[in-house]
Protein backbone atom coordinates (compact mmCIF):
# COMPACT_ATOMS: atom_id res chain seq x y z
CA UNK A 1 0.00 0.00 0.00
CA UNK A 2 2.68 2.43 1.14
CA UNK A 3 4.91 1.37 -1.73
CA UNK A 4 2.74 3.33 -4.15
CA UNK A 5 2.44 6.47 -2.05
CA UNK A 6 4.75 9.32 -1.17
CA UNK A 7 7.87 8.11 0.60
CA UNK A 8 9.17 11.51 1.71
CA UNK A 9 7.01 14.61 1.98
CA UNK A 10 8.82 17.81 2.94
CA UNK A 11 6.69 20.86 3.75
CA UNK A 12 7.96 24.41 4.14
CA UNK A 13 11.33 23.34 5.56
CA UNK A 14 13.51 26.13 6.91
CA UNK A 15 16.94 25.78 8.44
CA UNK A 16 19.43 28.38 9.62
CA UNK A 17 23.06 27.94 10.64
CA UNK A 18 23.70 31.14 12.59
CA UNK A 19 22.75 33.94 10.20
CA UNK A 20 22.98 31.68 7.17
CA UNK A 21 19.54 30.67 5.88
CA UNK A 22 20.64 27.35 4.37
CA UNK A 23 17.20 25.94 3.52
CA UNK A 24 14.49 28.43 2.85
CA UNK A 25 10.98 27.01 2.47
CA UNK A 26 11.63 23.67 0.78
CA UNK A 27 8.55 21.79 -0.47
CA UNK A 28 9.36 18.41 -1.97
CA UNK A 29 7.48 15.15 -2.49
CA UNK A 30 9.42 12.00 -3.31
CA UNK A 31 7.25 9.14 -4.60
CA UNK A 32 7.97 5.63 -3.30
CA UNK A 33 9.93 3.31 -5.58
CA UNK A 34 11.45 6.11 -7.64
CA UNK A 35 14.89 7.66 -7.90
CA UNK A 36 15.08 11.40 -7.24
CA UNK A 37 18.20 13.45 -7.77
CA UNK A 38 18.81 16.65 -5.84
CA UNK A 39 21.31 18.72 -7.78
CA UNK A 40 22.97 22.06 -7.23
CA UNK A 41 26.32 23.74 -6.71
CA UNK A 42 28.50 23.48 -3.63
CA UNK A 43 26.92 25.12 -0.60
CA UNK A 44 23.41 25.03 -2.09
CA UNK A 45 22.15 23.02 0.91
CA UNK A 46 21.83 19.59 -0.79
CA UNK A 47 23.54 17.52 1.91
CA UNK A 48 21.80 19.50 4.66
CA UNK A 49 18.44 18.65 3.03
CA UNK A 50 19.43 14.97 2.84
CA UNK A 51 20.40 14.91 6.52
CA UNK A 52 17.01 16.37 7.43
CA UNK A 53 15.29 13.50 5.62
CA UNK A 54 16.90 10.92 7.90
CA UNK A 55 16.65 13.02 11.07
CA UNK A 56 20.37 13.71 11.46
CA UNK A 57 19.47 17.41 11.44
CA UNK A 58 16.22 18.88 12.72
CA UNK A 59 14.38 21.70 10.93
CA UNK A 60 13.97 25.12 12.52
CA UNK A 61 10.47 25.19 11.04
CA UNK A 62 8.43 23.08 8.66
CA UNK A 63 7.83 19.35 8.76
CA UNK A 64 8.91 16.11 7.14
CA UNK A 65 6.65 13.08 6.67
CA UNK A 66 8.06 9.63 5.99
CA UNK A 67 5.34 7.38 4.56
CA UNK A 68 2.79 9.71 6.21
CA UNK A 69 4.45 9.57 9.64
CA UNK A 70 5.74 12.92 10.84
CA UNK A 71 9.44 12.94 11.68
CA UNK A 72 9.77 13.58 15.44
CA UNK A 73 11.82 16.60 16.54
CA UNK A 74 13.67 14.78 19.33
CA UNK A 75 15.85 11.71 19.52
CA UNK A 76 14.06 8.68 20.88
CA UNK A 77 12.42 5.39 20.00
CA UNK A 78 10.04 6.97 17.46
CA UNK A 79 12.91 8.53 15.53
CA UNK A 80 14.83 5.25 15.61
CA UNK A 81 11.77 3.44 14.22
CA UNK A 82 11.64 5.91 11.31
CA UNK A 83 15.39 5.65 10.76
CA UNK A 84 15.07 1.87 10.37
CA UNK A 85 13.26 2.55 7.09
CA UNK A 86 16.33 4.42 5.82
CA UNK A 87 19.90 3.72 4.91
CA UNK A 88 22.38 6.37 3.92
CA UNK A 89 25.55 6.19 1.86
CA UNK A 90 27.79 9.07 2.91
CA UNK A 91 30.02 11.13 0.64
CA UNK A 92 33.22 9.85 2.24
CA UNK A 93 31.71 6.37 2.71
CA UNK A 94 31.93 6.75 6.54
CA UNK A 95 33.16 3.19 7.09
CA UNK A 96 34.43 2.46 10.59
CA UNK A 97 38.18 2.11 10.14
CA UNK A 98 38.56 -0.04 13.25
CA UNK A 99 36.39 -2.78 11.69
CA UNK A 100 36.91 -5.06 8.69
CA UNK A 101 34.78 -4.77 5.56
CA UNK A 102 32.61 -7.68 6.72
CA UNK A 103 32.16 -6.19 10.20
CA UNK A 104 31.22 -2.84 8.65
CA UNK A 105 28.55 -4.45 6.46
CA UNK A 106 27.24 -6.44 9.45
CA UNK A 107 27.39 -3.55 11.94
CA UNK A 108 23.70 -2.61 11.97
CA UNK A 109 22.54 -6.24 12.02
CA UNK A 110 24.95 -7.27 14.80
CA UNK A 111 23.84 -4.36 16.98
CA UNK A 112 20.15 -5.16 16.36
CA UNK A 113 20.79 -8.67 17.78
CA UNK A 114 17.87 -10.16 15.92
CA UNK A 115 19.65 -12.53 13.53
CA UNK A 116 21.97 -15.47 14.19
CA UNK A 117 25.69 -15.10 13.34
CA UNK A 118 25.26 -17.62 10.49
CA UNK A 119 22.40 -15.60 9.01
CA UNK A 120 24.43 -12.38 9.32
CA UNK A 121 27.40 -14.07 7.58
CA UNK A 122 25.11 -15.08 4.74
CA UNK A 123 23.83 -11.49 4.37
CA UNK A 124 27.39 -10.09 4.39
CA UNK A 125 28.45 -12.45 1.59
CA UNK A 126 25.28 -11.78 -0.41
CA UNK A 127 25.48 -7.98 -0.19
CA UNK A 128 29.21 -7.84 -0.91
CA UNK A 129 28.67 -10.07 -3.97
CA UNK A 130 25.89 -7.73 -5.09
CA UNK A 131 28.29 -4.77 -5.15
CA UNK A 132 31.06 -6.81 -6.79
CA UNK A 133 33.25 -7.27 -3.71
CA UNK A 134 32.94 -11.01 -3.17
CA UNK A 135 35.56 -12.41 -0.79
CA UNK A 136 36.72 -9.01 0.51
CA UNK A 137 35.17 -9.52 3.99
CA UNK A 138 38.42 -9.55 5.91
CA UNK A 139 39.99 -6.50 4.25
CA UNK A 140 40.31 -3.24 6.20
CA UNK A 141 38.70 -0.05 4.81
CA UNK A 142 42.15 1.57 4.68
CA UNK A 143 43.30 -1.06 2.16
CA UNK A 144 40.49 -0.22 -0.29
CA UNK A 145 40.26 2.32 -3.10
CA UNK A 146 37.66 5.12 -3.02
CA UNK A 147 35.35 3.24 -5.37
CA UNK A 148 35.57 0.04 -3.35
CA UNK A 149 34.86 1.93 -0.12
CA UNK A 150 31.75 3.45 -1.73
CA UNK A 151 30.59 -0.01 -2.72
CA UNK A 152 31.17 -1.35 0.81
CA UNK A 153 29.09 1.58 2.10
CA UNK A 154 26.32 0.59 -0.35
CA UNK A 155 26.54 -3.04 0.83
CA UNK A 156 26.27 -1.83 4.44
CA UNK A 157 23.19 0.19 3.53
CA UNK A 158 21.59 -2.77 1.71
CA UNK A 159 22.27 -5.16 4.60
CA UNK A 160 19.66 -3.32 6.67
CA UNK A 161 17.05 -3.93 3.94
CA UNK A 162 15.81 -0.33 4.01
CA UNK A 163 12.85 1.05 2.07
CA UNK A 164 14.62 4.34 1.28
CA UNK A 165 18.31 4.73 0.43
CA UNK A 166 19.94 8.17 0.49
CA UNK A 167 23.14 8.75 -1.45
CA UNK A 168 25.31 11.78 -0.72
CA UNK A 169 27.49 12.48 -3.78
CA UNK A 170 27.91 8.79 -4.67
CA UNK A 171 30.16 9.44 -7.68
CA UNK A 172 32.29 12.32 -6.41
CA UNK A 173 36.02 11.64 -6.54
CA UNK A 174 35.59 8.61 -8.81
CA UNK A 175 36.82 8.16 -12.35
CA UNK A 176 34.14 8.01 -15.11
CA UNK A 177 34.15 4.22 -15.39
CA UNK A 178 33.75 3.69 -11.64
CA UNK A 179 31.13 6.46 -11.52
CA UNK A 180 29.15 4.67 -14.22
CA UNK A 181 29.43 1.42 -12.26
CA UNK A 182 27.99 3.06 -9.16
CA UNK A 183 25.24 4.67 -11.27
CA UNK A 184 24.23 1.28 -12.68
CA UNK A 185 24.22 -0.20 -9.21
CA UNK A 186 21.91 2.55 -7.92
CA UNK A 187 19.57 2.18 -10.93
CA UNK A 188 19.50 -1.55 -10.25
CA UNK A 189 18.46 -0.99 -6.63
CA UNK A 190 15.43 0.93 -7.80
CA UNK A 191 14.52 -1.35 -10.72
CA UNK A 192 15.15 -4.77 -9.17
CA UNK A 193 14.76 -4.18 -5.44
CA UNK A 194 12.08 -1.44 -5.80
CA UNK A 195 13.83 0.83 -3.29
CA UNK A 196 13.11 4.55 -3.06
CA UNK A 197 16.36 6.28 -3.90
CA UNK A 198 17.39 9.88 -3.24
CA UNK A 199 20.70 11.02 -4.67
CA UNK A 200 22.42 14.28 -3.86
CA UNK A 201 24.85 15.05 -6.63
CA UNK A 202 26.38 17.76 -8.75
CA UNK A 203 27.07 15.17 -11.45
CA UNK A 204 24.38 15.90 -14.05
CA UNK A 205 25.34 12.79 -16.05
CA UNK A 206 24.41 10.62 -13.08
CA UNK A 207 21.22 12.57 -12.46
CA UNK A 208 20.03 12.28 -16.07
CA UNK A 209 20.97 8.60 -16.22
CA UNK A 210 19.37 7.36 -13.00
CA UNK A 211 16.73 9.78 -11.83
CA UNK A 212 13.00 9.67 -12.49
CA UNK A 213 12.77 13.17 -11.07
CA UNK A 214 15.32 15.93 -10.59
CA UNK A 215 15.13 18.99 -8.41
CA UNK A 216 17.66 21.77 -8.32
CA UNK A 217 18.58 23.66 -5.17
CA UNK A 218 19.94 27.17 -5.44
CA UNK A 219 20.64 29.35 -2.41
CA UNK A 220 18.45 27.16 -0.21
CA UNK A 221 15.44 27.12 -2.54
CA UNK A 222 14.17 24.65 -5.13
CA UNK A 223 14.33 26.55 -8.40
CA UNK A 224 13.44 23.73 -10.80
CA UNK A 225 11.72 20.40 -10.37
CA UNK A 226 10.60 17.77 -12.86
CA UNK A 227 11.53 14.81 -15.04
CA UNK A 228 15.00 14.69 -16.68
CA UNK A 229 13.38 15.74 -19.98
CA UNK A 230 11.71 18.84 -18.55
CA UNK A 231 14.94 19.62 -16.72
CA UNK A 232 16.96 19.45 -19.95
CA UNK A 233 14.61 21.82 -21.66
CA UNK A 234 14.36 24.20 -18.72
CA UNK A 235 14.40 27.88 -19.56
CA UNK A 236 15.54 28.87 -16.08
CA UNK A 237 18.89 30.64 -16.73
CA UNK A 238 20.52 29.22 -13.56
CA UNK A 239 19.58 25.66 -14.54
CA UNK A 240 20.77 26.21 -18.12
CA UNK A 241 24.05 27.66 -16.88
CA UNK A 242 24.56 24.79 -14.38
CA UNK A 243 23.98 22.13 -17.06
CA UNK A 244 26.23 23.80 -19.64
CA UNK A 245 29.04 24.44 -17.13
CA UNK A 246 28.86 20.85 -15.95
CA UNK A 247 29.07 19.64 -19.54
CA UNK A 248 32.13 21.82 -20.22
CA UNK A 249 33.83 20.68 -17.01
CA UNK A 250 33.03 17.04 -17.75
CA UNK A 251 34.37 17.22 -21.32
CA UNK A 252 37.61 18.64 -19.94
CA UNK A 253 37.80 15.84 -17.34
CA UNK A 254 37.32 13.16 -20.00
CA UNK A 255 40.04 14.82 -22.07
CA UNK A 256 42.46 14.78 -19.11
CA UNK A 257 41.63 11.14 -18.39
CA UNK A 258 42.42 10.30 -21.99
CA UNK A 259 45.76 12.12 -21.72
CA UNK A 260 46.95 10.55 -18.45
CA UNK A 261 45.68 7.05 -19.22
CA UNK A 262 43.94 4.56 -16.95
CA UNK A 263 43.97 5.39 -13.24
CA UNK A 264 44.27 3.15 -10.22
CA UNK A 265 40.50 3.06 -9.81
CA UNK A 266 40.15 1.38 -13.18
CA UNK A 267 42.61 -1.32 -12.19
CA UNK A 268 40.50 -2.17 -9.14
CA UNK A 269 37.48 -3.08 -11.22
Amino acid sequence: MEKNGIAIDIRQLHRWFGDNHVLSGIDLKIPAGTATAIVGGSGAGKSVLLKHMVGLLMPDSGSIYIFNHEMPRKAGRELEEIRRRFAMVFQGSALLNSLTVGQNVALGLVEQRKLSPAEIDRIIREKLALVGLKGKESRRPGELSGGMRKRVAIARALAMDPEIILFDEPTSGLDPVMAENIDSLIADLRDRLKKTVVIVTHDMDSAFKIADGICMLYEGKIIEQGSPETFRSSTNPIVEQFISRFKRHNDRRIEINREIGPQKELLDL
Partner: protein
Amino acid sequence: MKKKARNIDKFFIFLGERLLEFFQSVGEMLLLLAETILWCRVVFKNLDKVLPQMGKMGADTLPIASLTAVFVGFVLALQTGVALQQFGQEENIGAIVSISMARELGPVLTAILVIGRIGAAITAEIATMSVSEEIDALRTLSINPVRYLVMPRFLACITMMPVLVIYVDGIGTFGGAAVAKAYFKVPFLTYVDNVAEYLEFEDIAKGLVKAAIFGVITSIVSCYKGLVTTGGPGEVGLATTNSVVLSFVSVYVSNYFITRLWLE
Protein backbone atom coordinates in the same frame (compact mmCIF):
# COMPACT_ATOMS: atom_id res chain seq x y z
CA MET B 1 34.58 58.49 24.64
CA LYS B 2 32.21 56.75 22.24
CA LYS B 3 35.00 54.53 20.98
CA LYS B 4 35.92 53.61 24.56
CA ALA B 5 32.30 52.70 25.28
CA ARG B 6 32.16 50.50 22.21
CA ASN B 7 35.31 48.66 23.31
CA ILE B 8 33.81 48.05 26.74
CA ASP B 9 30.65 46.74 25.07
CA LYS B 10 32.75 44.41 22.94
CA PHE B 11 34.62 43.19 26.00
CA PHE B 12 31.42 42.35 27.87
CA ILE B 13 29.88 40.73 24.79
CA PHE B 14 33.02 38.61 24.42
CA LEU B 15 32.99 37.72 28.11
CA GLY B 16 29.27 36.91 28.05
CA GLU B 17 29.61 34.71 24.99
CA ARG B 18 32.52 32.76 26.51
CA LEU B 19 30.59 32.31 29.76
CA LEU B 20 27.51 31.09 27.90
CA GLU B 21 29.65 28.67 25.87
CA PHE B 22 31.25 27.41 29.08
CA PHE B 23 27.95 26.80 30.84
CA GLN B 24 26.48 25.21 27.72
CA SER B 25 29.44 22.80 27.52
CA VAL B 26 29.16 21.95 31.22
CA GLY B 27 25.41 21.34 30.80
CA GLU B 28 25.95 19.16 27.74
CA MET B 29 28.67 17.17 29.52
CA LEU B 30 26.35 16.54 32.47
CA LEU B 31 23.61 15.39 30.08
CA LEU B 32 26.14 13.10 28.37
CA LEU B 33 27.10 11.71 31.80
CA ALA B 34 23.44 11.08 32.66
CA GLU B 35 22.78 9.36 29.32
CA THR B 36 25.95 7.27 29.71
CA ILE B 37 24.91 6.15 33.20
CA LEU B 38 21.48 5.18 31.81
CA TRP B 39 23.13 3.10 29.06
CA CYS B 40 25.18 1.24 31.71
CA ARG B 41 22.03 -0.88 32.29
CA VAL B 42 22.88 -2.80 29.12
CA VAL B 43 26.51 -3.36 30.07
CA PHE B 44 26.26 -7.16 30.03
CA LYS B 45 24.95 -7.16 26.47
CA ASN B 46 27.87 -4.94 25.45
CA LEU B 47 30.78 -6.69 27.14
CA ASP B 48 32.28 -7.26 23.67
CA LYS B 49 32.92 -3.50 23.57
CA VAL B 50 33.63 -2.83 27.27
CA LEU B 51 36.24 -5.53 27.93
CA PRO B 52 38.54 -4.63 25.00
CA GLN B 53 38.47 -0.99 26.15
CA MET B 54 39.48 -2.06 29.67
CA GLY B 55 42.26 -4.27 28.33
CA LYS B 56 43.51 -1.54 26.00
CA MET B 57 43.51 1.03 28.79
CA GLY B 58 45.48 -1.23 31.12
CA ALA B 59 47.96 -2.37 28.48
CA ASP B 60 48.58 1.14 27.14
CA THR B 61 49.02 2.77 30.54
CA LEU B 62 50.88 0.11 32.53
CA PRO B 63 54.43 0.61 31.16
CA ILE B 64 54.42 4.40 31.53
CA ALA B 65 52.63 4.12 34.91
CA SER B 66 55.32 1.73 36.19
CA LEU B 67 58.12 4.03 35.10
CA THR B 68 56.49 7.14 36.52
CA ALA B 69 55.50 5.50 39.81
CA VAL B 70 58.91 4.03 40.52
CA PHE B 71 60.73 7.32 39.88
CA VAL B 72 58.22 9.33 41.90
CA GLY B 73 58.73 6.81 44.72
CA PHE B 74 62.52 7.25 44.37
CA VAL B 75 62.46 11.02 44.48
CA LEU B 76 59.89 11.17 47.27
CA ALA B 77 62.03 8.89 49.44
CA LEU B 78 65.12 10.88 48.53
CA GLN B 79 63.62 14.27 49.42
CA THR B 80 61.92 13.15 52.62
CA GLY B 81 64.96 11.05 53.59
CA VAL B 82 67.31 14.04 53.42
CA ALA B 83 64.96 16.09 55.61
CA LEU B 84 64.26 13.29 58.09
CA GLN B 85 67.94 12.41 58.36
CA GLN B 86 68.55 15.75 60.09
CA PHE B 87 66.34 14.55 62.97
CA GLY B 88 67.43 10.92 62.86
CA GLN B 89 63.95 9.87 61.68
CA GLU B 90 64.87 7.95 58.51
CA GLU B 91 62.73 4.96 59.52
CA ASN B 92 59.65 7.11 58.90
CA ILE B 93 60.36 7.43 55.15
CA GLY B 94 57.97 4.52 54.47
CA ALA B 95 55.02 6.20 56.16
CA ILE B 96 55.51 9.51 54.32
CA VAL B 97 56.04 7.92 50.92
CA SER B 98 53.11 5.49 51.18
CA ILE B 99 50.63 8.02 52.60
CA SER B 100 51.61 10.62 49.97
CA MET B 101 51.22 8.05 47.23
CA ALA B 102 47.88 6.69 48.50
CA ARG B 103 46.21 10.00 49.27
CA GLU B 104 47.43 12.31 46.51
CA LEU B 105 50.20 11.27 44.17
CA GLY B 106 48.76 7.89 43.16
CA PRO B 107 45.35 9.16 42.00
CA VAL B 108 46.55 12.47 40.54
CA LEU B 109 49.58 10.99 38.73
CA THR B 110 47.49 8.15 37.34
CA ALA B 111 44.84 10.60 36.20
CA ILE B 112 47.50 12.67 34.39
CA LEU B 113 48.89 9.56 32.70
CA VAL B 114 45.46 8.29 31.70
CA ILE B 115 44.43 11.70 30.35
CA GLY B 116 47.62 11.93 28.28
CA ARG B 117 47.64 8.33 27.11
CA ILE B 118 43.96 7.35 26.91
CA GLY B 119 41.88 10.55 27.12
CA ALA B 120 43.75 12.14 24.19
CA ALA B 121 43.36 8.95 22.14
CA ILE B 122 39.62 8.79 22.92
CA THR B 123 39.07 12.40 21.79
CA ALA B 124 41.19 11.96 18.66
CA GLU B 125 39.38 8.74 17.71
CA ILE B 126 35.84 10.03 18.30
CA ALA B 127 36.61 13.44 16.75
CA THR B 128 37.95 11.72 13.63
CA MET B 129 34.77 9.64 13.51
CA SER B 130 32.70 12.83 13.87
CA VAL B 131 34.40 14.73 11.05
CA SER B 132 34.34 11.73 8.71
CA GLU B 133 30.58 11.29 9.34
CA GLU B 134 31.07 7.89 11.01
CA ILE B 135 28.98 9.01 14.01
CA ASP B 136 26.17 10.03 11.63
CA ALA B 137 26.55 6.65 9.92
CA LEU B 138 26.07 4.93 13.31
CA ARG B 139 22.89 6.95 13.88
CA THR B 140 21.47 6.01 10.48
CA LEU B 141 22.12 2.36 11.37
CA SER B 142 20.01 2.99 14.53
CA ILE B 143 23.10 2.58 16.71
CA ASN B 144 23.22 5.05 19.59
CA PRO B 145 26.76 6.53 19.67
CA VAL B 146 26.58 6.97 23.46
CA ARG B 147 25.90 3.26 23.94
CA TYR B 148 28.34 2.16 21.24
CA LEU B 149 31.25 4.51 21.95
CA VAL B 150 30.89 6.43 25.21
CA MET B 151 29.54 3.84 27.66
CA PRO B 152 32.36 1.29 27.10
CA ARG B 153 35.05 3.97 27.50
CA PHE B 154 33.31 5.40 30.57
CA LEU B 155 33.15 1.99 32.28
CA ALA B 156 36.74 1.19 31.30
CA CYS B 157 37.93 4.49 32.83
CA ILE B 158 36.05 4.23 36.12
CA THR B 159 37.02 0.59 36.69
CA MET B 160 40.61 0.66 35.44
CA MET B 161 41.61 3.96 37.04
CA PRO B 162 41.34 2.59 40.63
CA VAL B 163 43.13 -0.61 39.55
CA LEU B 164 45.95 1.46 38.07
CA VAL B 165 46.06 3.61 41.22
CA ILE B 166 46.57 0.53 43.43
CA TYR B 167 49.39 -0.51 41.11
CA VAL B 168 50.97 2.96 41.09
CA ASP B 169 50.69 3.21 44.91
CA GLY B 170 52.41 -0.15 45.28
CA ILE B 171 55.20 0.49 42.78
CA GLY B 172 55.82 3.99 44.19
CA THR B 173 56.01 2.69 47.75
CA PHE B 174 58.43 -0.06 46.77
CA GLY B 175 60.48 2.44 44.75
CA GLY B 176 60.73 4.45 47.98
CA ALA B 177 61.87 1.32 49.81
CA ALA B 178 64.72 0.84 47.34
CA VAL B 179 66.01 4.40 47.83
CA ALA B 180 65.52 4.21 51.61
CA LYS B 181 67.69 1.09 51.65
CA ALA B 182 70.31 2.30 49.19
CA TYR B 183 70.88 5.85 50.50
CA PHE B 184 69.59 5.91 54.09
CA LYS B 185 70.34 2.32 55.10
CA VAL B 186 66.74 1.68 56.21
CA PRO B 187 66.18 -2.09 56.16
CA PHE B 188 63.35 -3.27 53.93
CA LEU B 189 61.40 -4.84 56.82
CA THR B 190 61.68 -1.65 58.90
CA TYR B 191 60.32 0.30 55.92
CA VAL B 192 57.41 -2.15 55.48
CA ASP B 193 56.64 -2.14 59.23
CA ASN B 194 56.57 1.65 59.16
CA VAL B 195 54.19 1.62 56.19
CA ALA B 196 51.94 -0.93 57.92
CA GLU B 197 51.92 1.12 61.11
CA TYR B 198 50.93 4.48 59.62
CA LEU B 199 49.15 3.79 56.31
CA GLU B 200 45.45 3.30 56.97
CA PHE B 201 42.87 1.58 54.82
CA GLU B 202 40.99 4.88 54.70
CA ASP B 203 43.95 6.55 52.95
CA ILE B 204 43.90 3.94 50.19
CA ALA B 205 40.09 3.91 49.92
CA LYS B 206 39.88 7.68 49.59
CA GLY B 207 42.53 7.56 46.86
CA LEU B 208 40.49 4.95 45.01
CA VAL B 209 37.29 7.00 45.24
CA LYS B 210 39.23 9.96 43.84
CA ALA B 211 40.53 7.74 41.05
CA ALA B 212 37.00 6.66 40.09
CA ILE B 213 35.85 10.31 40.04
CA PHE B 214 38.86 11.23 37.87
CA GLY B 215 37.86 8.31 35.61
CA VAL B 216 34.39 9.82 35.19
CA ILE B 217 35.88 13.25 34.39
CA THR B 218 38.47 11.91 31.93
CA SER B 219 36.05 9.71 29.99
CA ILE B 220 33.18 12.20 29.78
CA VAL B 221 35.36 15.20 28.86
CA SER B 222 37.29 13.18 26.26
CA CYS B 223 34.19 11.66 24.65
CA TYR B 224 32.26 14.96 24.73
CA LYS B 225 35.09 16.89 23.07
CA GLY B 226 35.26 14.21 20.38
CA LEU B 227 31.53 14.11 19.74
CA VAL B 228 31.13 17.87 19.31
CA THR B 229 34.01 18.21 16.84
CA THR B 230 33.02 19.45 13.41
CA GLY B 231 35.04 20.52 10.40
CA GLY B 232 38.22 18.78 9.26
CA PRO B 233 41.43 17.14 10.47
CA GLY B 234 42.70 20.44 11.90
CA GLU B 235 39.79 20.49 14.33
CA VAL B 236 40.66 16.97 15.51
CA GLY B 237 44.04 18.19 16.77
CA LEU B 238 42.47 21.23 18.39
CA ALA B 239 39.76 19.13 20.06
CA THR B 240 42.39 16.74 21.45
CA THR B 241 44.45 19.58 22.93
CA ASN B 242 41.34 21.22 24.42
CA SER B 243 40.18 17.92 25.86
CA VAL B 244 43.53 17.23 27.55
CA VAL B 245 43.74 20.75 29.01
CA LEU B 246 40.12 20.69 30.24
CA SER B 247 40.60 17.22 31.77
CA PHE B 248 43.77 18.33 33.59
CA VAL B 249 42.11 21.45 34.98
CA SER B 250 38.97 19.54 35.99
CA VAL B 251 41.05 16.89 37.78
CA TYR B 252 43.15 19.49 39.67
CA VAL B 253 40.10 21.52 40.72
CA SER B 254 37.99 18.52 41.71
CA ASN B 255 40.96 17.02 43.58
CA TYR B 256 41.17 20.12 45.76
CA PHE B 257 37.44 20.16 46.52
CA ILE B 258 37.25 16.41 47.24
CA THR B 259 40.23 16.68 49.63
CA ARG B 260 38.69 19.73 51.25
CA LEU B 261 35.36 17.92 51.69
CA TRP B 262 37.06 14.99 53.41
CA LEU B 263 38.96 17.21 55.81
CA GLU B 264 35.76 18.80 57.15
